[in-house]
Structures are given as C-alpha cells and as structure tokens.
C-alpha cells in the first residue's frame, strides 16, 4: 500500500466573474512507506493547497490522490493519518488534556486506553505539566506541541504536517526531529512542509520543491549533499529561476 500517491493534481480556487486561481498545476508524486519527505516552496507556491487536497479539505479540480490506495477523503484512510494544521489553534476554552480527549473520542478511543495514551503523549511532547491549563493560556510553541500530540494520538501510519516546527524553540525543534525519527523507525511515513531548510536537510530522505503550483524538483537529500554546496543555496537558486539548477547544469 502506497501511503501517498498524487497524479496530475490540479487545484483551482473559483472566483465570481473572474478567472479561477490555479494554486496547484499537474502535480504528481508518490511517498513510500517509512519515508520522511519534505515539501518545500516559497509562500503561495501551493504547499498548503496540496496538503488540503491530501486531507480532503479542498475539492480537486482534476487529477487524483490516493492515501493507502484509498481515494482521498475516505473515512478509513483518514483513520490512518495524523494531521498537523498550519495554524496551531485549539479551543481556547479547553485544556490540552480535554482537547486530546475530544480528538481521541472522535477517533474511536475511550476510557483508560485513551487516558493513558493522552498522558503518555503529553509527556512525550513535553507539556504534561500544562495538561490542565486552558489552551488560551499557552504559548504558541506549547500549542504547537498540543498539535503534535493530537496528530500522534491515533497511532497514525502517515503523518501530514503543515509547517510542523512553527513556533517551536531550538530545543523543541530538536525534540520534534527526534520524535519524527522514532516515528519513522516504527514504520510511519512523514510528509511535511517547512520553510526551515536545515530542518529539512537533517530530517528528510527526500525533498519535493513546488513553485507556482508545479513540482520543479524531486531529490534525495543524500544526492544533494554530494552535488550542491548547501541545500539552502540550491533551494534559493531554484525558486528564483523556477528550474532545478542540477538539471540545468546537466543540460
């Protein structure tokens, strides 16, 4: 079963009396089991639209997405996904414990199993001492940790994370990287978008670069390490020219 299979994906935003905006254009890629893939692109490149498409939040204009060989939006497929949204906002009137309890119950968990799972996760993401504090009294980084915990709650086989380390301090970022590595060693696939190139470089097996809705590069990090001076320079050169510098060099 392929965790993510995207074929000729097109996503357009309709506008009244005007030409629709094409956010994603003929995008195709695949993510294999236990792979960590970084999804890069400048602001407005189409990363969040693609992720919304993967989660079934955004109707596809054309093309197809399959999650574990099931069509996107399928309830069974969603039971295997852990999702971290771009903005970590959770009900300001609930505590992290209650927030996770709500999401756990929606995932079909209950009773002691759920309580133990929540306690373990809050410990793992480092906010067990704030488990009973209202979300509105938590910092952005702490809310991001709540978000990571909710994404891991149902023991997903695939993690989809939009700007996963947003708001985290350096220690939090390192802990998150370790957490993702542990997830991968348990056979979990991780697909995430990020603007932090060093994070992508240290964590990913492969990167996908999207520019103006099109996939312009798909490289393994080990391949890049031998061929470019720094991944950051490579990325900046690519988004400025709109083409993969390594393809250009080969030509």
């Amino acid at each position, binding site marked *: 079963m392929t965790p993510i299979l995207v074929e000729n994906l097109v996503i357009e935003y309709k506008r009244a009396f005007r030409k629709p905006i094409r956010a994603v254009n003929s995008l195709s890629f695949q993510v294999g089991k236990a792979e960590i893939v970084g999804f890069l692109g400048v602001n407005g490149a189409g990363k969040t639209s693609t992720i919304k498409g993967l989660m079934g939040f955004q109707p596809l204009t054309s093309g197809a997405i399959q999650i574990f060989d099931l069509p996107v939006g399928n309830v069974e497929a969603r039971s295997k996904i852990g999702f971290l*949204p771009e903005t970590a906002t959770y009900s300001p009137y609930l505590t992290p414990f209650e927030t996770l309890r709500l999401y756990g*119950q929606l995932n*079909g968990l209950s009773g002691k199993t759920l309580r133990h799972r929540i306690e373990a996760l809050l410990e793992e993401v480092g906010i067990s001492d704030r488990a009973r504090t209202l979300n509105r009294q938590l910092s952005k980084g702490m809310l991001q940790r709540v978000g990571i915990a909710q994404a891991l709650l149902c023991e997903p086989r695939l993690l989809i994370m939009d700007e996963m380390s947003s708001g985290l301090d350096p220690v939090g970022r390192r802990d998150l990287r370790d957490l993702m590595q542990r997830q991968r060693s348990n056979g979990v696939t991780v697909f995430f978008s990020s603007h932090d190139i060093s994070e992508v470089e240290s964590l990913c097996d492969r990167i996908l670069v999207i520019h103006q809705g099109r996939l312009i590069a798909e490289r393994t990090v080990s391949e890049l390490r031998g061929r470019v001076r720094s991944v950051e320079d490579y990325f900046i050169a690519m988004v400025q020219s709109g083409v993969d510098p390594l393809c250009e060099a080969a030509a």
Partner: protein
Amino acid sequence: MTRTMQICKAFIVAGLLETLRRKDLYVVLILTVLMVAGAWMFGFFGVRGLEVFIRDVTLSAIGVFSTILTIMIAGRQVPEEIARKTIYPLMARPITRWQILLGKWLTASITSILCFLVLAALGRALLMAFGIPVGPIFYQYLLLKQVGLLWLSAMTVALSVYMTPAANITICLILAFGSGIFTRFTLLWHGETGATGASLNFLYGLLPHYDFFDLGAKVTYAWPPIGAVIVLSLAAYGILGSFLWLGVGWLRFRKAVL
C-alpha cells in the same frame, strides 16, 4: 449508529465545557436575577388581580431569553470552528461532515435546553412563591418548547453554513420572532380560493413556524391541557423539521471549501 452516538457525545461534552467556561450560563443567571428583581417589585406592590399579567410577563421573558440564547449559541457552533481553524483537526478525524454537523446541532440544542430549563424552573418557582397557579398545560409548554429549541438550533446551525455569523443571527432572530406574524399575515388571505388560495396555503406550510411550539399564551390564560395527539404531532413536526434544516445545512457543508 453507536459510532455516531460516540461522536455526538464527544462534541456535547466538549461543547458544555466550553459553554461553562465562556460564562454563557452567567448570562442566564443575570437574566434570572432581572426576573427575580421584577417579580420582587410586583410582590412589593402586591399581585392581587394581576395573575394573568404576571404569568404573561414571566413566560414572555422565558421565551424571549431562551430564543435569543439559542440563536447565539447555535449560530457560533460551525462558524467559530472555521474562523479559528479548529475545523481542520476535526475534519482530519475518521468522521463524516454529516457527523460534525449533527454533533454541533446536538451540542447547541442541549446547551440551549439546559439554559431554558434553568429559566423555566426559576419562573415556575416565582409563580409558586406568589401563589399563582399554572396548571398541567405548563408541562406541555415545557415539552414543546424544548422541541422548538431543537428546531431553532437546527435552523440556526443550517443557515450558519450559508451566511456570515452576523447575517445568520439577524435572519434567525427575524424568523424566530416573526414566525407568528407570518402566520397571521398569511391567514388574512385564507378565504382565497383557486390558485391564489393554494399558493397561500403552500406558503403557510413552507414558512418556518417556531410559534407552533409556544404554548405560553395558553399557560397565561390557564387553558386546559391540549390533546396528546396534537402534542405528539407538534413534536413530530419539530423533529422532522430539525432534520430537514440539518439536511439543508449539509447540502452546503458537505462540499464547502474550508
């Protein structure tokens, strides 16, 4: 079905906690204090011969406050999730959009019914304190009002996925308080026959009738209880109407770009 019940229960528990912490119930308590203060004034000046008037004021206050609270509570259920983007982690769960809508409706309904029951219990206690009887029809009033709040919550939740929160609340307030007026307005032409009569009758059936669930006037004028068949028919109309409204909301919500 069991899974849907579990999902709804999760929404209701979280919704009630939010309501408590938002201090929505404080609003009910403030309104209650106002009612007590008003009643105290009646007590101060004496209530002899004013039984009908006091029943009218008490039941009108309960009706108005519970209607406004219901619209405010139901009107924010879905739009607030969308505005603060908490809808994404919800929709990432293995649940359908219909289950989200159903859960939100039940949360709004149960919260509103609780607020109504608090107000009604206080109103009843005040009337008892003044020695003003209400008769068994009061219990029919309680039952039908709860069905009415289910219906009103469903309408407000459904319309909230079509329009902005401010527009939705305005429209729902007009429909809730204006439903009695629509009925009277339509009845003006009730004598019409042929195509005009049929159209007007169709319009009468089509317009939302929140007023059907309000037996407040009958309680005020100490009517005898109404027939069980009528109560059951109205309850069925309310529950069917609630699901029709939810269906209207789902038509939009199932494909909505969020």
